[in-house]
């Protein structure tokens, strides 16, 4: 779960990491006294909000309110801005980059740092980035030496840097982060180190340990929230074919096959290894509300029995009167039974994946 900037900064502040003075507002009227120049920053999870006009500046309350009024409601990369963060403008001497993330290969937490902050880290040449595993026993002083060496900080800033890195590591572990990124990490002209922007992603699977984040689930669309509640993987894409399959790999492969055949998936819905017809029904109801041009059901029955799926489909079609055309490909355990059940409700299921995919593409009008 990605946190909004203001929430990430609150969290960093809780761990003692210096962040700019600031306040969040979801309506311009909420903005009260301001006695310093501020940046008014759209609180969206998408990157590149600056270029999209999501960051403006103001010197007094009236200006701040009118900038906030311009930004709130703005759509940035498909995401509607619901609130702004008003934050003191820093007197910047240098911008650095610092992050912690999970590394698959070494199965460890990795510290990334660069003296070139304030830009996307992808655009920084690799030789200017420090990438180093944090020993599994925690932050160790040699990391500070590496940070200093890579960033070229003086003794006073290096000391702040070590303190900050230790706190960020503690936050990362204690809050089960997937990513904790400070970019830019600013050195002000008076020599203070401040997290000027903050990105934190919490590991979804660890949310059971962090009840305090449940109220932050604003980054999910209503359909995504429903899917989450039903434990169905739901991904919104750009096309018009709704795909329901069982298993992440099979679902991805189904998307690929549709694409190769000229179609485009609009919603991706993974039943996982269920053997509960009600979950299938829930998935169809979700799909109905996602309004694709056609639903492509692709099941390879193993743990998930094909007839179980068919019963779920039948219940959904009958109860919720789904009018969207359904193309079904069913294979595996009890596929004969499944085909019979689907036939009853007018769906002709095939066993061949490729021909079914072509049929779905055609039905989608591509």
């Amino acid at each position, binding site marked *: 779960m990605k946190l909004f900037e203001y929430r990430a900064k609150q969290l960093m502040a809780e761990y003692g990491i210096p962040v700019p003075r600031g306040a969040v507002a979801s309506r311009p009227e909420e903005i009260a006294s301001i006695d310093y120049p501020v940046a008014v920053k759209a609180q969206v999870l998408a990157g590149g909000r600056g270029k999209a006009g999501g960051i403006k500046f103001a010197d007094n309350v009236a200006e701040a309110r009118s900038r906030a009024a311009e930004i709130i409601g703005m759509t940035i990369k498909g995401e509607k801005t619901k609130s702004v963060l008003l934050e003191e403008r820093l007197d910047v001497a240098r911008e650095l980059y610092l992050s912690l993330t*999970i590394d698959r290969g070494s199965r*460890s937490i990795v510290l990334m740092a660069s003296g070139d902050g304030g830009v996307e*880290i992808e655009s920084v040449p690799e030789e200017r980035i420090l990438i180093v595993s944090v020993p599994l026993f925690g932050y160790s002083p040699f990391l500070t030496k590496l940070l200093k060496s890579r960033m070229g900080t003086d003794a006073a800033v290096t000391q702040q840097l070590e303190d900050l890195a230790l706190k960020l590591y503690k936050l990362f572990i204690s809050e089960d982060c*997937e990513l904790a990124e400070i970019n830019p990490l600013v050195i002000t002209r008076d020599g203070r180190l401040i997290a000027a922007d903050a990105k934190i992603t919490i590991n979804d699977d*660890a949310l059971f340990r962090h009840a305090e984040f449940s109220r932050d689930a604003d980054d999910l669309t209503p359909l995504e929230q429903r899917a989450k509640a039903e434990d169905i993987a739901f991904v919104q894409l750009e096309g018009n074919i709704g795909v329901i399959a069982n298993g992440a790999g099979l679902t*991805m492969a189904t998307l690929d096959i549709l694409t190769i055949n000229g179609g485009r998936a609009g919603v991706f819905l993974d039943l996982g290894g269920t053997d509960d017809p009600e979950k299938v029904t829930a998935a169809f109801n979700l799909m109905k509300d996602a309004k694709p041009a056609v639903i492509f059901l692709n099941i390879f029955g193993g743990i998930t029995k094909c007839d179980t799926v068919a019963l779920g489909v039948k219940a959904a079609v009958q109860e919720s009167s789904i009018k969207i055309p359904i193309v079904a490909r069913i*294979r595996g355990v009890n596929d004969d039974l499944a085909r019979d059940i689907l036939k009853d409700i007018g769906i002709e299921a095939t066993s061949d994946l490729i021909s079914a995919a072509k049929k779905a593409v055609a039905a989608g009008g591509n």
Partner: protein
Amino acid sequence: MAVLVDGGTKVIVQGITGHQGQFHARSMREFGTRVVGGVTPGKGGSAVDGIPVFDTVLDAVSSTGANATCIFVPARFAKDAVFEAVSAGLKLIVVITEHIPFLDAMQFTTYAKLNGATVIGPNCPGVSSPGYGKIGIMPSKIFARGDVGVISRSGTLTYEIVNALTESGFGETTCVGIGGDPIIGSNFVEILSLLEADAETKRIVMVGEIGGTAEEEAATFISRHVSKPVYAYIAGRSAPPGKRMGHAGAIINRGKGTAESKIESLEKAGVKVAVLPTDVPGLMKKGR
């Protein structure tokens, strides 16, 4: 022979009295696996389908001589379950449980590695060696004994491909589902080296997907250390960046982990990469 699961494998099931544990213990046994015990705290002394249940893994191991375990316990208890298995000296630990926090997985995979135990998973379908047995949840019917070793990050997609292989007259030595999470106990490279060393395995199928660089590392390993023909399929060609595609590991982040990069690396290493999953048996027939 086969790898990981063979004639010497004696399995216990951690979480055997749960719905999944019970169902799959039975299915494993029907596939020929020596399921020698189960563990559920507080249920020691009882039995599930004639399989004795113990309170602790240590009790189960000392009573049965088990050397492998299949873990079905809920995500929040999985780390402790793996620690217990490692502590009791088990050397093959298959973790079926999904939705395990990354930090937990980092800890238990590390602890197992330190103690010389192999972890398969988490969030994986397990290991099947037709003729010897299986540990995990793969459907039994799709397999036939043969000379193909299969390694996959996926579940159902693997069944689809294995089924296609079997219907085309191929069979498997061992099929290993390594799991779709970012932090897993065994990667492609570890399993490739086992299959390369296995005399009965004559060819290898790798089922990869977007996310991470495990396929690229596998390609490097293949070009250096694998003499057997390798066939691959990579799922997620059409996935957009930044979207997690069902598996926690299947995400294209910061320009890394694209299907293109994986396919290119594998092809450079001499791997035949199928465009559609159903093309794999065809490619293999050409290769014969």
